[in-house]
């Protein structure tokens, strides 16, 4: 399974999936900063990451995915620093032979990330 992981302060520049002959499904998820946090308007969110540990925890999650599903590749970008409302803080792409495993792996990845990857947010008012 190919993986690519970026933790970056830059806006996410989406690129097209790199397909190979036996791959039939691509699931892409964009996590986008909403305009409200706890019912108050905000202008963005500041993300802080424990970068070395975050990379390591993502690798553990990727390994768990590889054990469970036949996934061809995962690319994940998570912003750090300030992200404005309506911009993506997270972008994930999962390529697999069929859609069932692509959806399952993508959701598992996000659920696990939200439990284990040391990234925190702070609303910007």
């Amino acid at each position, binding site marked *: 399974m190919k993986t690519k992981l970026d933790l970056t302060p830059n806006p996410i520049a989406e690129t097209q999936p790199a397909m190979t002959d036996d791959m039939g499904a691509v699931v892409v998820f964009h996590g986008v900063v909403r305009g409200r946090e706890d019912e108050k308007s905000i202008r963005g969110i500041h*993300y802080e990451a*424990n970068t070395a*540990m975050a990379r390591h925890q993502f690798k553990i999650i990727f390994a768990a995915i590889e054990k469970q599903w036949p996934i061809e590749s995962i690319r994940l970008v998570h912003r750090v620093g300030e992200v404005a409302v309506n911009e993506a*803080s997270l972008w994930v792409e999962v390529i697999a032979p069929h859609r069932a495993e692509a959806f399952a792996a993508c959701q598992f990845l996000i659920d696990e*990330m939200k439990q284990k*990857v*040391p*990234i*925190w947010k*702070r609303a910007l008012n």
Partner: protein
Amino acid sequence: MKVTVKFWSYFRDLTECGETSLEVNEGETLGNVHAAVMTKFPKLAEMKKSTLKAVGVDYQTDDFILSDGDEVSLFPPVQGG
């Protein structure tokens, strides 16, 4: 032996510092170091139940035995995504 303890997210606001060093006994556990840190920074004690603990880049439980030079991280629940 000496261990470093790093604070992340709003734990830094509670401790008013990014990290601290502690002299502890050889073979001390992560749980005891956490207890010592809460004594030094009482505001962290209020967060005890929700505190996540790592040594280096791995999560560890309270019975984890620390080594000289270990870097402990204490932080609130993560919020990526």
